[in-house]
């Protein structure tokens, strides 16, 4: 379970508040769609959930752990162990081969590595195949040669390896065309279901909303109204 309470955040003490969220609760296994315009504090919210930034007030609790109670290194380790991320674009490390990109979280988290099975590389191939990628054809290529849609699917495989409890997706479809978007979304849903993970999906695109169990607008829960 994820619970945010009385969160307030601003970048610098003289700046206006970016986030002011009295409460946000996401249940285990829930698929939450968070709608918001770009610049509406979505990115800040994700950094907060990931433990990369700290709120000036309030608590962020993920899977029963108070993120604020953890020290910097422990927060990074917690993120590695329990959260998978998919970003809008450029999700891949250009100098790593396909499989190594998927295995990246296993480098930083023994827990994820352990949960990926005895042969994490086989698990990586399985996930890639499930995401509809022809691993044999793509594995030898530099990842920067992959299409945008292929790269996003690799990013999902990476977010899911070692079955983290929480998957956070930040506008993962905005770089894709209409057809690719629909296919991507259903694959993502399917795999998140299989892993039994909680999904928080952030987008400005309200058309995606119906696929999710619950949806809310960031403006509804965030009393701060950052410009833009």
């Amino acid at each position, binding site marked *: 379970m994820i619970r945010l309470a009385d969160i307030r955040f601003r970048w610098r003490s003289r700046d206006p508040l970016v986030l002011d969220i009295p409460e946000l609760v996401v249940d285990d296994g829930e698929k939450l769609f968070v709608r918001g315009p770009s610049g509406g504090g979505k990115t800040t919210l994700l950094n907060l959930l990931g433990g990369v930034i700290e709120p000036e007030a309030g608590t962020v609790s993920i899977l029963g752990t108070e993120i604020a109670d953890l020290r910097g290194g422990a927060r990074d380790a917690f993120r590695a162990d329990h959260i998978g991320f998919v970003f809008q674009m450029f999700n891949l490390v*250009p100098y790593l081969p396909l499989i190594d990109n998927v295995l990246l979280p296993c*480098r930083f988290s023994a827990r994820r590595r352990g949960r990926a099975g005895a042969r994490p590389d086989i698990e990586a191939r399985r996930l890639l195949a499930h995401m509809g990628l022809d691993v044999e054809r793509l594995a030898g290529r530099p990842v920067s040669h992959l299409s945008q849609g292929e790269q996003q699917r690799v990013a999902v495989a*990476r977010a899911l390896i070692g079955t983290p409890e929480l998957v956070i997706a930040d506008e993962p479809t905005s770089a894709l065309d209409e057809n690719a978007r629909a296919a991507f979304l259903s694959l993502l849903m399917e795999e998140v279901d299989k892993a039994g993970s909680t999904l928080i999906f952030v987008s400005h695109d309200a058309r995606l909303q119906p696929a999710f169990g619950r949806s809310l607008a960031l403006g509804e829960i965030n009393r701060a109204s950052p410009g833009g």
Partner: protein
Amino acid sequence: MPIVSLALKSVLNRAATAGLVVFAIGVSVALLLGVERVRTEARASFANTISGTDLIVGARSGALPLLLYSVFRIGNATNNISWKSYRTIARSPEIAWTIPLSLGDSHRGFRVLGTDRGYFEHYRFGRRNRLSFAAGAPFDDVFDAVLGAEVADRLGYRPGDPIVVSHGLGASGISDHADKPFRVAGILARTGTPVDRTVHVSLQGIEAIHVDWRHGAPIPGLAVTAEAVRGMDLTPKTITAFLVGLKSRLAVFGLQRRINEYRAEPLLAILPGVALQELWDLMGTAEAALSAISVFVVATGLLCMMATMLAGLGERRREMAILRSVGARPAHVFGLLVAEAMALTIAGIAVGLGIFYAALALAQPTVSASYGLYLPIAPPTGRELAFLGLVIFAGALSGAIPAWRAYAQSLADGMTART
């Protein structure tokens, strides 16, 4: 460490840039090693050139010129010593042995030294090593010659071969003593000193080839055959210098003063150790300058690496953000860049060692022949390894600056760097 293999893959991915940086560091490291090796070997070979000799005596000039021409076969004596003075001094009671030296002729670029058989008995180099024969024996006949190892190697001589001595130090053919050829009687084992580049003949031999010469040219109409000359009195009238060994070293300063105050002609006696030290000190400045330059060249190579890494940071922000999102700490980002810098430096050192040994193998014969400096193709010395360790440390330090920038950048960017 999850970071090391990442760093290697990252470096390999930018092979073109990384290759240039590695090459730049490699060249600088090769230079550093080269200067260091030449310096050490020059110093060692220098100190080892002559030992066991208590005094070197020549016509009065300076201590350095005397040392240079008598021991290093560099330059020329401005004046000679009369045979009479030599014999007078040589009879002093405190003297155990003397070796007369007569210079001025050459054979195909190698100096010819007239001396006597005492040379093979008393001359010492390095840690009091005697001269030993690789083949043949000391000269016996007037026209016998004993070759240094380098002379024999380079010119392919074997005992029994004839050789023609040229007058003066020019190339052969201009003024040869072709009418009185010598025969190779023996070849000395390699010493790593100027002895290797010397053709030794007897004083009588030197005298014999000059019997019919005056003022550096054959006397017109007076040609004495090699056979006829054997019947003549071949006692030299002058020699260039002589080496002195004492029965007791305690006598050295007394004898030196007596020689320096010798009435019949102006002489100079020097202590080889003191003169060697003076000469080395003279070169010390150049040596230090050379070392300083090579250190700066390495610094330049590392700066070049640092600049390349700093320039690349901007386009790597996204990569750092991805690493942060999968759980990398800012410290990992710092470590990644330091590891990359170290990988580049170590690769540079490997390339540098390659260049260094290739250059050594190429230059060794030339340097040995032209400068009498034998550069061993040996594994790096402790001191050289220590230098390489310092280079790696300096490389890591140079990497710390871009690493610090990336660290600060990734703290600010978090997981959400655009671009």
